[in-house]
């Protein structure tokens, strides 16, 4: 199924009052951040999208695909990634990729190199084909999962629930997914990641309360924040590797 638009039609907040934001339209390549305090309903909204709600969930929202509600189970529409996701399979990275490709009827051999390259562009410590899935670090696993979703899973929608602490190049991850013409929706508390999305939806008390677009000023701000984030990352990496910060230039 070719997706042209995904629409979220408002339902109600936790008390049953109508949601201030009436609809949100998304197109392939769009990325949307869900922002809001703990308990504001970010995960609930992700769950509504995952199930293609038809006014039949707690929030009363309806999800339209190409303007129509989905009546049949929309299997294969949505890929999910969260803090809790792990590999449970006992296999090497290579076997894993071949197995996934086979289940999709695709040639794993020719996908291997680009997938490994993308994985390694997303995390600090490099991943090789022979490694067992079970020895991968949190960051390495997450990087492989993201590259695999971008290149192998043919789902047009990707839902991400709080993966910012996984030790991956998070901005690049977002670019990679949106760049493969997916609709990426992520619940996140990370300021830089929030600003990396073209739009952000403010959640409060279970309701979509405002849809904000990053302004020019904010974009400039984001560059600064990103720079600070890079410094922090580098310092973290140096300290973790047992180096001192003496060699780093002060910025």
């Amino acid at each position, binding site marked *: 199924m070719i997706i042209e638009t995904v629409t979220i039609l408002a339902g109600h907040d936790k008390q049953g009052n109508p949601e201030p934001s009436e609809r949100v339209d998304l197109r392939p390549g769009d990325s949307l951040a869900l922002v809001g305090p703990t308990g504001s309903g970010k995960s609930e909204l992700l769950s509504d999208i995952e*199930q293609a709600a038809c006014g039949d969930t707690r929030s009363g929202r309806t999800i339209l695909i190409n303007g129509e509600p989905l009546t049949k189970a929309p*299997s294969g529409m949505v890929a999910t990634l969260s803090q809790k996701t792990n590999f449970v399979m006992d296999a090497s990275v290579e076997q894993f990729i071949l197995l996934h490709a086979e289940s999709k009827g695709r040639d794993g051999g020719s996908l291997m190199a680009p997938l490994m390259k993308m994985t390694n562009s997303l995390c600090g410590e490099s991943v090789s084909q022979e490694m067992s899935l079970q020895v991968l670090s949190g960051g390495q696993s997450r990087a492989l999962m993201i590259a695999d979703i971008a290149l192998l899973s043919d789902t047009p929608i990707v839902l991400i629930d709080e993966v910012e602490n996984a030790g991956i190049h998070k901005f690049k991850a977002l670019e990679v997914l949106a760049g493969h013409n997916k609709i990426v929706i992520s619940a996140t508390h990370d300021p830089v990641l929030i600003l990396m999305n073209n739009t952000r939806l403010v959640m409060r008390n279970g309701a979509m309360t405002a849809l904000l677009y990053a302004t020019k000023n904010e974009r400039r701000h984001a560059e600064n924040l990103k720079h600070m984030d890079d410094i922090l990352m580098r310092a973290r990496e140096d300290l973790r590797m047992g180096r001192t910060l003496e060699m780093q230039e002060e910025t």
Partner: protein
Amino acid sequence: MKLVTIAGAPSAGKTAVTLHLIRQLDKDGKRSAAVKFDTLGTTDDQIYRERLGIPAIQGLSDYLCPDHYFVSNLEEACAWGKKQEVDFLFVETAGLCYRCAPHVKGVPAITIIDNLGGMEAPRKMGPALILADVVVVTKSDIVSQAEKEVFAHRISQVNKTARIVHVNGLTGTGVLHLRRISETWPEANALEGLSLRYSMPASICSYCTGETRIGKRFQSGNVEKLLLEENAA
């Protein structure tokens, strides 16, 4: 009343998923009851009663073959359900071995399997999986998207016609699909004369009647031996 059989390995998430489905149905004003068939003991019926306040009973096979006990009591369970004046009766089974399936022709059949049993699990599970109308896959929240996709593909290889639905047994995400499918289920008519989807084994040896000792001397009835050379002689 719609009757539904639910099968799956212990801890696959049968009760968790059924609880979520019953809550969904309740929102549409549909009432449910539950029967739990098990072997030696269960608290599932209590869980259904306490968490949802619905009528629920248990049937324990104890010293009998759980599969045979189940099929011998299905009619009675259904009659009990009708007395509760409910719209849905869920029959959750556990303790049935992989040789058998509790599913009955003409009665909607759900089999629940989790993502953690390994990629060979769908091939190992036998008739309970192969003959189900709906296969519910749980615990997708803790495995990678790729593993979830490969696992679903493996299920579709052994059961080409089943609807495969992913449900998170903890949060209930995905249970909407099941509720939508439940609208297509037929009302339960008289069970008498309906057939099991897969026949049950002849189990009429001395161990069926309580024998516990090992050795040829204690074995009688329907006994078959491994085809080893020593035995053939």
